[in-house]
């Protein structure tokens, strides 16, 4: 059970469970897969006690389908998985983008491709979280780096998902999912919990995909007096399949701009020692913690280095990153893959900033010494 204000020793995966409960999750569907299984186990244990619904589906395709179904029937819904399962879910994640269905997917990253390294860490699903399903769409993905952040970023994932009617991925990793850390559950009301906006028009006037000035459409639920069609086919504002070029264009632009227009609300960063930094380490998730450690060690040696950690991996806030790197001569992008975030930072960094990649992809977490060494190397 969720005990507000209580200090607990929680695994990252357990913290995701409690974060989801804090955000008001009502439905969870999942399929066992290492290293995410503790999330499904926690949900199976707690949800039946609090009026929530849990189902173990026959596969990850079914899991994501079930949570989309439940979300359209009015429930805050979530699933959790890892690499192979995340790959299986991609078609239906696309369906959630297209049908603007709020839902939260937690991907506890492990090594890949394929079955890869079920019990070892990687951060190689970042691009999949943006481009994993086919077609044109915009994506939100968040990345915590501690048990506490697993909690708060899961809450934020629900909020953004419900606020913008879109699926949101939380990218954690094997080390984060399994490590236990002391954290205090926030008090009730301490964190904002967003409630889905319901229509305030009579059913006859309701359009499920209406292109509103804010671009976010209020959302009715099945069985509550509003009858409408939802389709993965490109559709008009009423949800009926369309082949009209202007309607197709309007739909895709809605999917893009309802996220890009709200970067300030969606993106979030932490910076350390950046005020006078000549060198910056840019990293997220578990690696960010190694970066802070390395920065601390480097500062003790009077090296002017700082760290930037994005909690929002997608969308990339180009303007903000540019301004954060303003005056920074060199930036090291540290990540557990052979280059993903690196290319994004290279794309958006100011011309005067040189971008270096520090990758690790042997199933082990990056160490502070490795980062410190790279800092010395680029100086």
């Amino acid at each position: 059970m969720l005990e507000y204000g209580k200090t607990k020793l929680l695994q990252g995966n357990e913290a995701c469970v409690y974060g989801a409960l804090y955000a008001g999750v009502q439905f969870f569907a999942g399929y066992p897969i290492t290293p995410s299984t503790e999330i499904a186990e926690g949900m199976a244990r707690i949800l039946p006690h609090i009026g929530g619904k849990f189902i173990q589906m026959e596969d990850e395709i079914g899991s994501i389908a079930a949570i989309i179904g439940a979300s359209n029937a009015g429930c805050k819904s979530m699933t959790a998985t890892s690499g192979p399962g995340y790959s299986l879910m991609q078609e239906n994640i696309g369906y959630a983008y297209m049908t603007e269905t709020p839902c939260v997917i937690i991907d506890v990253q492990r090594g890949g491709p394929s079955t890869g390294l079920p019990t070892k860490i990687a951060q190689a699903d970042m691009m999949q979280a943006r481009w994993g399903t086919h077609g044109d769409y915009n994506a939100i993905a968040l990345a915590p780096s501690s048990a506490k952040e697993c909690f708060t970023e899961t809450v934020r994932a629900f909020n953004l998902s419900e606020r913008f009617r879109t699926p949101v991925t939380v990218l954690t990793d094997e080390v984060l999912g399994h490590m236990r850390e002391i954290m205090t559950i926030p008090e009730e009301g301490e964190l904002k919990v967003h409630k889905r906006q319901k229509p305030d028009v009579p059913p006859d006037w309701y359009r499920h995909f209406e292109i509103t000035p804010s671009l976010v459409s209020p959302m009715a639920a099945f069985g509550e007096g509003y009858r409408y069609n939802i389709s993965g086919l490109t559709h008009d504002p009423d949800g009926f399949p369309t082949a009209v070029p202007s309607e197709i264009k309007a739909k895709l632009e809605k999917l893009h701009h309802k996220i890009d227009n709200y970067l300030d609300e969606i993106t979030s960063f932490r910076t350390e020692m950046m005020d006078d930094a000549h060198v910056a380490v840019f990293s997220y998730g578990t690696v960010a913690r190694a970066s802070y450690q390395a920065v601390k060690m480097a500062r003790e040696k009077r090296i002017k280095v700082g760290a930037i950690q994005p909690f929002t991996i997608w969308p990339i806030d180009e303007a903000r990153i540019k301004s954060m790197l303003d005056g920074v001569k060199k930036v090291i992008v540290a990540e557990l893959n052979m280059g993903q975030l690196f290319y994004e930072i290279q794309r958006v960094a100011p011309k005067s900033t040189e971008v270096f990649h520090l990758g690790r992809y042997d199933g082990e977490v990056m160490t502070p010494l490795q980062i410190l060494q790279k800092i010395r190397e680029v100086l």
Partner: protein
Amino acid sequence: MNKTVIKSDVTHHYLRPKKKFPNVWCAGCGNGIVMGALIRAIDSLGYDKDEVAVVSGIGCSSRMPVYLDFATLHTTHGRALAFATGVKIAKPHMKVIVITGDGDALAIGGNHFIHACRRNIDITTILIDNKIYGMTGGQFAPTTPGGAIATTAPHGNYEKQFDVVKLAIGAGASYVARGTVYHVDQLEKLIVGGLKKKGFAVIDTFSNCHTYFGRFNREGDAVEMIRWFKKNALPVEAVEKIPPEKRVGKFVTGLIYESDATEFCDEYQMLVDRLAGKGNAQ
């Protein structure tokens, strides 16, 4: 024999008239007949439109929900039952109906199909079984008879077939029936039975795809194909009285299997009640 009364006013009440009519189906397609039977079945049960959700996947038959004035969810290929499972668990009071085809339910969606049967979740599945992939232009399906021609079986189909009824019974569905688009009254009754059943109901509905199956296999136009259903259907009540040699090449129709296995949402509620009596989780 009763004459079917076409209650078009009733039908129109459940359609979305201003929406995307005419429909996408070929003239003579059995899908419209099934849609009519479904509407009459729902009307006869007096369900409120707001308590009905119709979920479908991809294929000709899966276009049906678009035309119906209920909560309708047109999903991805093969996954309708998984989406419907989420809807049903989230809103157990709703009547959840899945419209699917033989390719949608048995090939790409085969895993969801057997697991929905196994859970015995209260969903009524109308499986429109036309023995071919129509929307993509006539490829063979898991139900296509041996030897039949399809675009991906140009030399005749050499694969074996699923028997939908046996599959559903074996997997645990608690209401398993077969109807055809010729036997419209019976189909309506079977759908009513499926909707009233608290559990997973499968109505394997033989339908005609004269555009592809009929044309490729020289089975004639819509009328000829539907006549074939009339000629070869064996009502389940009569089947025992017919000597085995006369059953060859025919198929059984009617309510073939029914059990009173506990339904999934009821099981879940029992768990919730049990825990409520027992105290708190860790």
